[in-house]
């Protein structure tokens, strides 16, 4: 067991930190510190390309596809330095962290050539079309239909809660292709170009006033036959494989963003005197401890490379961070007091901490709600009986 990094790894850290901080002090100063998903989207697309130009876009990918084949430790380090430098989240994180690895794992050589360079270069932004009005937690219930028409797939139906659809170039869609099929069987995983008349997007306003997710309608939308990842009817397996990538190294970067949020709370508490309140002090300590344990949980998860035993750290990771961050939002408001409930201008727009309070209510919903996480932990982690379905 070893936590420290080697000298070479520390040199890598210095190199990454240097470059990132230089960018945030220079050419990309205007996007430093942004914490929302889509603010200044166009500039952030340019930032994607800047990363790619310097081979920092997807360092964990193989060299032949624009990556560096970076070691686990290097990926951890880069993710940490990225957030430490105040660089905003990747607008193409769905492409880099979900679509890319999915294509690397399940795609054909031809598909890799078609998609990976664009993702790596930061020119193809992806969004995720899984959820539907009647398929949320019960993802296997998707009804959007895909049928093969000559050498094209034709897609009809509706997706919902599609984050970033309005700034995306491509969407990956789980659709039902098996005539009369039900549940996870008969699903197909397709890559579709967003820029076509058959796809229509309507933004949905969120509780914080932003509109970062959307309804996505498919009305005879089309894609070439070979846009299918995996084989027809195997979409569930691909989708599940993709969800596993969500627990990758990117979590470490996310934690650094959490670090910045907790630091902002600590600064506010020192500023307004709440730091003298023993109950607030206990909660700050608990938040700090939770954040540290998240880091070491992630390192355990990433170090567990043989996957021989049930990986408890991985299985519990999502609910752990989501619940922690929701608590952080509440702590933020308790520290700010009533002042935190007043916007800084006339618009319904929120500074980092009040926005954290509002936005973190979504953390325990997307990517599998806390209840669904508990079901999975109990069933996969502890071997308890599966939830009964009502429609079987």
């Amino acid at each position, binding site marked *: *067991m*070893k*936590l*420290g*990094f080697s000298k070479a*790894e520390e040199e890598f850290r210095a190199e990454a930190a240097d470059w990132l901080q230089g960018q945030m002090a220079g050419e990309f100063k205007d996007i430093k510190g942004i914490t929302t998903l889509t603010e200044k989207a166009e500039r952030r697309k340019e930032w994607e390309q800047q990363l790619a130009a310097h081979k920092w876009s997807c360092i964990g990918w193989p060299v032949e596809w624009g990556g560096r084949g970076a070691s*686990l*430790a290097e990926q*951890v380090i880069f993710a940490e330095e990225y957030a430490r430098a105040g660089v905003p989240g990747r607008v193409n994180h769905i492409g880099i962290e979900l679509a890319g690895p999915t294509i690397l794992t399940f795609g054909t050589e031809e598909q890799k050539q078609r998609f990976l360079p664009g993702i790596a270069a930061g020119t193809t932004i992806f969004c995720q079309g899984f959820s539907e009005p009647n398929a949320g937690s019960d993802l296997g219930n998707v009804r959007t239909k895909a049928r093969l028409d000559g050498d094209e797939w034709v897609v009809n139906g509706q997706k919902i809660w599609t984050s970033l659809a309005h700034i995306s170039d491509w969407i990956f869609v789980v659709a039902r292709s098996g005539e009369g099929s039900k549940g996870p069987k008969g699903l197909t995983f397709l890559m579709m170009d967003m820029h076509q008349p058959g796809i229509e997007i309507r933004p949905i306003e969120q509780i914080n006033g932003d509109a970062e997710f959307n309804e996505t309608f498919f009305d005879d939308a089309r894609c070439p036959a070979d846009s299918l990842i995996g084989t027809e009817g195997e979409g569930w397996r691909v989708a599940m494989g993709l969800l596993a990538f969500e627990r990758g190294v990117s979590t470490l970067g996310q934690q650094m963003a959490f670090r910045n949020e907790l630091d902002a709370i*600590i600064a506010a*508490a*020192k500023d307004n005197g709440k*730091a003298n309140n*023993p109950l607030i*002090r*206990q909660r*700050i*300590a*608990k938040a*700090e*401890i*939770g954040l*540290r*344990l*998240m880091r*070491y*949980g992630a*390192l*355990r998860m*990433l*170090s*567990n*490379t043989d996957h021989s035993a049930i990986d*408890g*750290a991985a*299985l*519990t990771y999502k*609910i*752990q961070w989501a619940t922690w961050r929701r608590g952080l939002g509440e702590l933020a408001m308790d520290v700010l007091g009533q002042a935190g409930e007043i916007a800084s201008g006339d618009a319904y727009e929120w500074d980092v901490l009040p926005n954290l309070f509002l936005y973190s209510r979504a953390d325990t919903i997307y990517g599998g709600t806390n*209840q669904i*996480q*508990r*079901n999975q*932990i*109990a*069933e996969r*982690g*502890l*071997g*308890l*009986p599966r*939830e*009964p379905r009502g429609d079987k």
Partner: protein
Amino acid sequence: MEFAFTEEQAMIAETARDFFRENATSERTRKAMAGEGIDRELWQAFGAELGLAGLTVPEEHGGSGLGMVELAIIAEAAGSQVSAIPLLGHAMACAAIGAGGSDEAKAAWLPRLAAGEAICAIASTHSTLEADGDKLTGTIQCVPHGAVADLLLVAAPKGMWLVETAAKGVSIEGHTTMDQTRPLATVMLDGAAATPLAQSFDVTMAAWSAGWIVLAAEALGGAQETLERTVAYSLDRVQFGRQIGSFQAYKHRLADMMIEIEQARSAVYWAACAVDEGSDEAQMALHAAKSFCADTFFMCAGNMIQLHGGIGFTWEHDAHLFFKRARSIQTMLMDGEFHREQVARMVLGEAA
């Protein structure tokens, strides 16, 4: 960076787990509970047969010279069976003597501790003891396994000493204690002969680190065991024509236990690694581990009783052993509020 056991560590873990599963049975622990609160045979086997008592003692003094990660591994295994052994005082004494004992003190005690021949208890107090040369006077409350100890590691604000319990001026009164696997005693010193250890932050920290890691790791092992036993019960017991483990409210409580336990596991091994590697995070890691793991164990042990129903409330069932051990770990070597306050000071930049 490789936050996983090495092969050697995995082997130690397996050996320790098997040993305590096989030997620290409910029957034997209950026998110890009815007596002095120690399973002497178990402690001897642990020390002599397995050679684990010398785990952290340097090789030149008859030990294996291993670190906090290995100590955590065996404490986790011991804690998983609520074994009635004096590992806490033992680990603290090995660390304190190793770090701050004179050559004579090392030669006198380390080989005996490494062989599991001497039992040591930690006697810590916030009030100052009267120290007159090498004689100590004062009363120390709540000394775990104090009544069966041969040696006391006395820790007071002014320093640390070794005191032999057989020496003149030492009297010890054992108490009936809620957790009968680690009964508390009151130690009265009246001009008792004491050997001082070197006074430094490092020596003090060596002792406390070992103690906090033992308690945190015991708590982790205990919590994991309450989860496993409750899962097994939930698959066995049927109500309303279903396994009780199929009810969602029940499943979710077990899931919550696993979520906390996974964090507790990260906490223990983070702290142990940080101490072994001399990381500047070590202090925070220790406070985090002690407070987090104690709370986790208590939550899990409480759930174990609830999720067993009536049988969980009986003396006959082992749930109360875990519950009482968990309660005692929460306050032993400072409570959660103390540890979190230390963390708060660090993050608020007020560290002394």
